[in-house]
C-alpha cells in the first residue's frame, strides 16, 4: 500500500512542485489558502493533469508524463471528499450512497444499509441533501466514498463548511473512520490543530512547493522554514543577521538573541512563539530585552500584547512583537517595566 507522487504543474501565479511518498498512514498537507493544496489533490485524482512527473499507487501507474500514461479518474480508485461534499442534490441519501457501487440491486441495498448504520444515517434514506444538517451531509459524503471502495482517500478541507462545535464532533468520528481505512489518506487543510490531531506526518505547502513531510512532532517543535513556522502557529518571525560571536540579530526588532543550536549560513530567519516570552525583573539572563506595550488586546482566555522593543528598527507593524500571556499574569505586571526573556531553546532558527 503506497502512493508515490512526483509532479509539476504550472499555474497562474506559481508552479506546483509536489514530491512525496505515503504508506498506510494519514498525511496532512498544511498550507494557506491559494497555495495549491486543492490542485495537488485534483492532480492525484486525475481531475487536473500535471505538466510533468508521475503518480504511482500500489504499483499501478496513474500518471506518467514520460510514458504518456494518464489514467481516467474513474479507473484510479480514489475517494475524494470535496470541501462542499458535492452530494448530488436531486438524489436521496440512499441514491447518493449507491451511486458509486457496483453489483446487483439487493447487494447495493444491503451495503448501503450497512454504511448508513455505521454513519448514523438510519431513517434518512429518503431525505435529500438539502434537508440534512452539515454534519449529516459530511457523513453521507463519506459513506458514498467508502461505498465505491477506493484505494486511497483525499480530503479537501473536510471541516471548513462546519461550525466549530460540529467540527470537533465530526473530527473525532473522522479519525475513527480514517484509522479503519486500509490505505493512505491525504488531508489538506489550513488548520494546524486539525492537521495535528488527525495526521501522523505533515508537510507544509507554500507557494506551490511541498516542503519535506515530517513527523508532526518534529514539524511543530522544530519548524525549519518561515512558512512552516507561521503555519504551525508561530506569530513572530524576523529576518536575521548573523553576528561574529555566534549570536543573531533579529532585524525587525533590533535585538540580539543567543540560540541553543549553533547558527550556520543557512539561517535566515528567527521565530519566537507568542507565549514563550517570560516576563523577568532584571537583565541577569541572556536574551532579555525591554519592550513597550503598544496595543493590548483582550482575547477570550488570554491577553495579547503587541509590543515594540526599545531598539526596534521597523517603524510599522512589522517591528511589533506579539506576546500572549494569561490575564492573571498581566494583572501582576501592571505599572512595572516590561522586561521579556526568551529561553535559548525557544529561539527557532529558520532557513
Amino acid at each position, binding site marked *: 500500500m503506497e502512493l508515490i507522487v512526483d509532479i509539476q504543474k504550472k499555474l497562474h501565479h506559481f508552479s506546483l512542485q509536489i514530491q512525496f511518498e505515503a504508506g498506510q498512514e494519514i498525511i496532512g498537507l498544511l498550507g494557506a489558502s491559494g497555495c495549491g493544496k486543492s490542485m495537488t489533490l485534483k492532480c492525484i485524482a486525475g*481531475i487536473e493533469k500535471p505538466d510533468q512527473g508521475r503518480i504511482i499507487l500500489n504499483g499501478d501507474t496513474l500518471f506518467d508524463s514520460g510514458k504518456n500514461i494518464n489514467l481516467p479518474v474513474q479507473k*484510479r480508485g480514489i*475517494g*475524494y471528499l*470535496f470541501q462542499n461534499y458535492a452530494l448530488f*442534490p436531486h438524489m436521496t441519501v440512499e441514491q447518493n450512497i449507491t*451511486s*458509486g457501487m457496483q453489483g446487483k440491486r439487493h447487494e447495493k441495498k444491503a451495503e448501503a444499509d450497512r454504511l448508513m448504520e455505521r454513519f448514523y444515517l438510519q431513517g434518512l434514506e429518503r431525505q435529500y441533501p438539502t434537508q440534512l444538517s452539515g454534519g449529516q451531509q459530511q457523513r453521507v459524503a463519506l459513506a458514498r466514498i467508502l461505498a465505491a471502495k477506493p484505494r486511497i482517500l483525499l480530503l479537501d478541507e473536510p471541516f471548513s463548511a462546519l461550525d466549530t462545535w460540529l467540527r470537533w464532533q465530526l473530527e473525532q468520528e473522522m479519525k475513527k473512520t480514517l484509522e479503519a481505512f486500509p490505505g493512505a489518506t491525504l488531508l489538506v487543510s489550513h488548520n494546524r490543530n486539525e492537521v495535528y490531531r488527525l495526521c501522523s506526518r505533515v508537510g507544509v505547502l507554500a507557494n506551490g512547493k511541498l516542503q519535506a513531510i515530517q513527523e508532526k512532532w518534529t514539524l511543530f517543535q522544530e519548524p525549519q522554514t518561515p512558512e512552516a513556522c507561521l503555519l504551525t502557529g508561530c506569530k513572530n518571525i524576523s529576518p536575521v543577521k548573523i553576528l561574529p560571536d555566534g549570536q543573531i540579530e533579529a532585524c525587525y526588532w533590533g535585538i540580539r538573541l543567543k540560540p541553543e543550536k549553533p547558527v550556520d549560513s543557512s539561517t535566515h530567519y528567527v521565530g519566537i512563539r507568542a507565549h514563550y516570552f517570560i516576563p523577568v525583573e532584571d537583565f541577569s539572563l541572556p536574551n532579555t530585552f525591554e519592550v513597550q506595550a503598544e496595543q493590548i488586546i483582550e482575547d477570550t482566555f488570554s491577553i495579547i500584547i503587541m509590543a515594540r522593543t526599545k531598539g526596534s528598527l521597523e517603524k510599522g507593524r512589522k517591528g511589533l512583537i506579539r506576546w500572549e500571556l494569561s490575564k492573571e499574569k498581566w494583572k501582576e505586571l501592571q505599572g512595572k517595566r516590561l522586561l521579556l526573556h526568551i529561553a535559548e531553546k525557544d529561539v527557532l532558527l529558520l532557513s
Partner: protein
Amino acid sequence: MTAFWISVKTALCATGIVFFAGLYAARFVYGLKRFRGIIDGLFTLPMVLPPTVVGFFILLAVGKNSPFGRFLLQFQIQLVFSWGATVIASAVVSFPMMYRTVLGSMEQMDRNLIYAGRTLGMSERRIFWTVMIPSCRKGILAGTVLAMARAIGEFGATMMVAGNIPGRTQTLSTAVYTAMQAGDRTSAFRWVLVILALSLPMMFFINYFGNGKKGG
C-alpha cells in the same frame, strides 16, 4: 385553420429536434478546452444573423444544387418549399435558444458534482444523464420553451426555404404577412391573436418555473 396546425406541427417537430441537438451541443461545448469560443460562436450564429441570411445558408446546404439535395433527389424527395423545410428553418433558428440556455445552466452548476461522479467511478454517459441533466433541468425546461416559442414565431428563414404556400408551408407568421399584403386586416388580426394565445402562456410558464422553487 390549416396555418395554425402547420405552425403547431412544425414547432413541435422543430422543438423535438432542437431539444436533443441543443442538449448534446451544450454538453460538447461545456467539455471543450480549446476552440471553445469559435464553436460557441458558430452555434449561436443563427440567433444573431438576419433570418434571411440563415435561410440563404439553409438553401445552400439542402437546396437542389447542394450535395445533400442531390442525394435526396435520387429518392424523389425535394426539401425546399416542402413542409420539411419549415421544420428545418424553425429548428435552425431556434437551436441557439436551447443551446445557450442549457449551456448557461451547465456553467452555473457545481463542477464538483461532475468530479465527484468521476471519482465514484460513474461513466461519463451516466454522469451526463443522472447528474448533469437533473441538475440543469430548469435550464433545459426554459430552453425548450424558449425554442418552441421561437419556432412558432419563425418567419424569415421559413419564407426563404419553405415559401408561403397556403395549406402546405404557410405558417401563422407567414399567414399574417400574406393577409396584410392582401389588405385583409381582419384575418391578420385573427392570426395575431392566435399567435399571442400560443406564445404568452409559454412565457408565463417560464417565469413561473424559472423564479420559484428549489433546485437549479
